[in-house]
C-alpha cells in the first residue's frame, strides 16, 4: 500500500508583514532511520530538482521502509516567482550581486533578517533542524556538466557522493565559503553526525528528462544507501571523475579546447558528461574573417566537462550563451578519470 505524503507549510513573516507559505511533503515510514531532506530551487532559476522531487515522492510512496523524508520542491518561492536566482536581481545581473539575498548563503536563516533569510529560517525550523541528511538540488549553466559537490571531510557526504551515480564529483574542503555565509550543505556537513551533498543539474531555466532522471537516480540511491528503500544503489556506468582535492593533478587531467580565432561555433551533437574518445569530432567554427571551417577534435579520451561556446554570466543572460566565439574563448573541456 502506498505511503501517504502529508502536505505542510513553512511559514515566514516577511519584513512588510506579509507571509510566504512554502509547501513541502513529509513522509514517515513509522520506523527508525535517517531523516532525509531533499530540497530544490533555493535559486529561483534552478528548477530541475523540483520535478526530481515530485518523482522521488512517488518512489518513497511505494517503498519507504525506514526513516522519514521531507521534500521541498520550491525552497525559495519568491525567487521562483521572480524567475531569477535571487529576488534582488534585475536583468542579466550576476549571482554575485546578491545583496544578501542568495538563499544558499543564509542558513540557518534569521527571523529578523532580510526576506530571504526569513524564508530560510522558516524552512530550517519546519524541516532542516529535524533532518540528519540533506540532498540539495541546484543547476548551473548548460555548458558545464551535471556534478555532485561533496565535502571530503564528512564521511556521510563522501558516501552520498559515491552513491549518487553522477559522473563528476567536485570535492570541496571544509571551512567557510570564500564569499561568506553558510550553505545548507555546510550547515549539515559541519556537524559530523549529519551529512549533505549538492547536485548541480545542468542547466538552469529548463526541465530536461535526462537530468531529471539523473537526479531521481541520485536521490533514490542515497535513500538506498541510508537503508530507507530496499536494494543497493544503482551503480554508475563507468568511472567517477573526481576533482577538487589536488589542483595540480586536476589541471593535468583537464584538457581545454579554445577558439583560435573569432567565428561561429557549431557543436557536433554531443552533451556535457558524454564520453569522448581521443580524436573524436567535437564541432567546427566558421571563421569570421574568411569563412573557413576550423574543426575541433577531442585531445584525449575522457568525459566532456564543458561543451559549447559560452562566456561569463551565461547563467543569467542570453548573450553569454551565444555561439559566437572570440579568439581564446573556451569551446570544450575534457576531464580524464583517475587511473
Amino acid at each position, binding site marked *: 500500500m502506498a505511503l501517504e505524503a502529508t502536505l505542510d507549510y513553512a511559514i515566514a513573516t516577511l519584513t512588510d508583514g506579509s507571509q510566504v507559505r512554502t509547501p513541502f511533503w513529509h513522509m514517515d515510514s513509522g520506523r527508525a532511520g535517517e531523516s532525509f531532506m531533499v530540497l530544490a530551487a533555493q535559486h529561483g532559476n534552478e528548477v530541475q530538482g523540483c520535478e526530481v522531487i515530485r518523482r522521488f515522492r512517488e518512489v518513497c510512496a511505494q517503498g519507504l521502509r525506514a526513516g522519514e523524508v521531507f521534500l521541498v520542491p520550491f525552497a525559495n518561492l519568491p525567487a521562483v516567482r521572480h*524567475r*531569477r536566482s535571487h529576488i534582488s536581481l534585475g536583468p542579466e545581473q550576476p549571482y554575485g550581486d546578491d545583496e544578501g539575498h542568495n538563499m544558499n548563503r543564509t542558513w540557518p536563516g534569521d527571523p529578523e533578517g532580510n526576506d530571504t533569510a526569513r524564508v530560510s529560517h522558516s524552512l530550517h525550523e519546519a524541516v532542516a533542524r529535524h533532518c540528519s541528511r540533506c540532498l540539495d538540488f541546484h543547476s548551473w549553466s548548460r555548458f558545464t556538466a551535471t556534478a555532485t559537490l561533496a565535502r571530503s571531510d564528512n564521511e556521510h557526504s563522501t558516501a552520498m557522493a559515491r552513491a549518487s551515480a553522477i559522473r563528476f564529483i567536485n570535492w570541496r574542503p571544509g571551512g567557510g565559503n570564500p564569499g561568506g555565509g553558510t550553505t545548507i550543505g555546510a550547515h549539515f556537513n559541519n556537524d559530523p553526525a549529519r551529512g549533505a551533498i549538492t547536485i548541480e543539474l545542468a542547466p538552469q*531555466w529548463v526541465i530536461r528528462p535526462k537530468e531529471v532522471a539523473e537526479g531521481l537516480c541520485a536521490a533514490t540511491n542515497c535513500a538506498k544507501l541510508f537503508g530507507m528503500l530496499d536494494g543497493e544503489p544503482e551503480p554508475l556506468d563507468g568511472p567517477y571523475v573526481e576533482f577538487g582535492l589536488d589542483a595540480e593533478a586536476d589541471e593535468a587531467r583537464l584538457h581545454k579546447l579554445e577558439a583560435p580565432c573569432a567565428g561561429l561555433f557549431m557543436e557536433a551533437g554531443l552533451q556535457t558528461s558524454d564520453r569522448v574518445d581521443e580524436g573524436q569530432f567535437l564541432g567546427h567554427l566558421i571563421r569570421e574573417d*574568411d569563412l573557413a571551417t576550423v574543426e575541433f577534435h577531442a585531445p584525449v579520451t575522457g568525459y566532456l566537462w564543458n561543451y559549447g561556446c559560452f562566456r561569463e554570466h551565461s547563467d543569467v543572460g542570453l*548573450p553569454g550563451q551565444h555561439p559566437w566565439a572570440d579568439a581564446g574563448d573556451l569551446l570544450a573541456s575534457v576531464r580524464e578519470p583517475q587511473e
Partner: protein
Amino acid sequence: MPEVELHHVTATLSDGSQLATPWWRLGSGADGPDLLVLAAQHGNEVQGAEVIRRFMGECADRQLRGTAWLVPFANLPAIRHRRNSILLGPEEKGTERHRAHNMNGQWPGDPAGNDIQRLAHALHEDIVRHASHVIDLHCWNKFWATATLATDDGAESRRMGEVAGTRFTWWRAAAPVEPPAQVRDVVMARGGSGMAMEFAGQYAMVEREVLTGVRAVTNVAKMLGMLAGEPELPPDTGIDVTEDTTVVVAAPCSGLFVQTPDLQLEDCVEAGQSLGHIIREDDLAIEEIVAPVGGWLWRFGSHRPDPDVSLGDQHPYSQPGDPLASIVTG
C-alpha cells in the same frame, strides 16, 4: 563545377573605420537566377549561417545554372555584440534605439546614415541589387516552431514558399512597401522574388533546424533549376498558420510547467494527449495539461512576451493565462 569565390563587402562606418563582411559567390557560368541567401541580420539569430555553409557545399558540388550569393554573417557588428542589434543593453527590446538599428528595416540602406544603414547600403550595392531571388534566414525564440514566411504574389515568391518544405508556412499577401524596408521587400519591389525563414531558437545552433534550412534552400534552388532534381517535400509540410486554425493552451494555475518528455515543436498531437503537467505552487498538486484538439505543435513550453531577450521569460514557472502550447489544426 563553380568556383567558390570569397569576397568582402566594405562599409565605411560613422567613425571612419571600415567593416569588412565576408561572403561567397558561386557562379555556374550558365545563365540562370541570382539567388541571394543571407543570415544573421539580427546578431542573435545565427542558425542560418550554418545553413549557408552547408548549402555552399551543395552548390560547389553540383550547381548547374545561375549564381549563388551567400552572406552568412550579414550583420557582423550585432553578432559580435551577441544581441539582436548593436547598442542594445540587457534584455532591451522594442526601444527606439532598437528600431533605429534593426537591420531588417533599413534596406536599401543609407551611405550617410547610422552604422547599420551604412552596412546595409554597402551590402545592397555589392550584393542585394544583383539578386533576382532572396532567402532571408532568421530565428525566433525556441518556443515557436520553425516556419517559412512566404508571400503570395501568384508567381515565383509563392512557389518558393510552397517548396520550402517546412512544417508550417505563414502567408502574407503581396503589397507594395515603401523603403526603408525588409530585404525581401526591396528585392520584390523591383520584380524579384523572395521568402524568409524563422528557425526555432536564437543564441544557439540546433542540428534539426539547420537540416530543415538546408532542405528548404536546396529545394528552392532545385525549383529554380540551379540544382538538379526535384524539391524534397516531407509529408505534412506547408501547414498554413492562421488565427482561425490555432488553439492556445494556457496555464490554469500558478506553478512549474513540466513538458511531456519526447514531445517537441512540430509534433502531431491528438486531442486528449498529455502535453505535460504543472506542479502547483500553493499545494503541490499536479495539474495535467492535455491537448484540447488534435493538430500540430506550433508553440510549446511556458514562456512570456520576451523570451528572445530574457532568460526570465523562458522560465517554466507559469501564472494563470500564461501560454503553454499552441496547436494548429487542419
